[in-house]
């Protein structure tokens, strides 16, 4: 079989399908102020901790973070995190963030977890929204459009996209095909799809063709940069 990989191997910088970057710092260097940043992971599993730390050091202003959990206290600095979209505002570093919410300096948009998943999927799939029964009759329908189908009511959940997604996987090939580990998959595929610029941290990077193409959790088309951070389980 012939393929682009053959070319990239000899001179990887000549192959624009090669998504590997050298460091987490380089990977996040151009994340702009004002960005909406999607972050994969559920608690610590599949969470891109190295990228988060690199972005904290980059010190972006006025960012919105979208993540199932709210472990982003490191972004609470003057003119830093302004908005958090999550289902579960709890986490090891969440305290300053929760204080900001309490004080009114940070806006919290609390979203049921499954609605968060569908909104990201819609954002990444070109859908204008999905009709969900989740949250009907509760405060989660406040301000949302209700659409009736066959006499049943649904909440119109609108698409959610990011300027940037920070995700984590176990293995990558140089094109950015990703394989997750155990329950570390969680929101990572959905966030990868839903951002203009998707950056993945992984334990290992291999050559194209070395991962089983039947077992890719996140195809390379959804990934723009890959950085090996090591330190993960074998």
């Amino acid at each position, binding site marked *: 079989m012939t393929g682009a990989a053959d070319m990239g191997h000899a001179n990887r910088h000549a192959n624009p399908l090669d998504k590997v970057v050298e460091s987490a710092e380089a990977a996040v260097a151009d994340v702009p102020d004002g960005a909406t940043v999607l972050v994969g992971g559920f608690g610590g599993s599949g969470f891109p901790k190295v990228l988060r730390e690199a972005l904290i050091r980059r010190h972006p202003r006025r960012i919105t973070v979208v993540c199932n959990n709210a472990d982003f206290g490191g972004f609470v600095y003057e003119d830093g995190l302004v908005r958090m979209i999550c289902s579960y505002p709890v986490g090891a570093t969440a305290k300053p963030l*929760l204080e900001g919410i309490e004080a009114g300096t940070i806006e919290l948009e609390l979203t*049921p977890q499954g609605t968060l998943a569908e909104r990201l999927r819609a954002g990444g799939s070109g859908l204008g929204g999905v009709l969900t029964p989740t949250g*009907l009759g509760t405060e989660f329908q406040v301000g949302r459009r209700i659409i009736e189908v066959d006499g049943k009511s649904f909440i119109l959940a609108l698409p959610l996209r990011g300027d940037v997604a920070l995700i984590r996987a176990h293995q990558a090939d140089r094109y950015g095909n990703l394989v997750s580990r155990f329950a570390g998959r969680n929101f990572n595929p959905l966030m990868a799809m839903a951002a203009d610029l998707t950056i993945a941290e992984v334990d290992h990077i291999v050559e194209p063709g070395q991962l089983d193409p039947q077992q890719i959790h996140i195809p390379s088309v959804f990934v723009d940069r890959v950085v090996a951070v090591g330190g993960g389980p074998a």
Partner: protein
Amino acid sequence: MAWSNEALADIVAGDITDGWYVNLGVGLPTLVAERLPGRPVLVHSENGILGVGPPPPAGEEDPDIIDPGKNPVTIVPGAAYMDSGMSFALIRGAHLDLSVMGAFQVSADGDLANWRLPGKKGGAIGGAADLAAGSRRVWAMTTHTTRDGQPKLVRACDYPLTAIRVVTRVYSDLAVLDVANGRFRVIRMAPGVTEDELRASTGAEIEFAIQ
């Protein structure tokens, strides 16, 4: 005498049918999970595991094998991992035979309030709204009253709601009650609990299917 948490968990586990796919919330329902190993029942964890097993031995925890409470777990043979999209498709699409959930309040119409205390800011909804709205059966597992003796089974919830008209049965420390058209129907009572006692600690009309 009220059932102990352990006795109540035994009762709930006993009412789970072999072959079911179930989700067990944080709090009291985790005691049910401890009673399932060895039974042909698959436990779902909304962060993406179908087939959760018991906690691992100390030293064998894996940071990527956790339950929704972020506690390390194991998996059983026949388990499958999935992403959050499929995990909540599974939940919302009524593929779970049962969710057992904790409760702050349950109304006699089956409304569930279990994620935030009234008047508080914040609160964490997590997957609760989806599990409550989507599961084929929702059983609430809770003490019958609050610590200061207020009824948790009420005519209408005044706590922030998780979902409406979803709970079909309540397992409390005092009784097992079906939600039945605006009333609670008692189908089992803890030993020594009287009908009057139960009526007094319930904030909605109750009827007795048992004598």
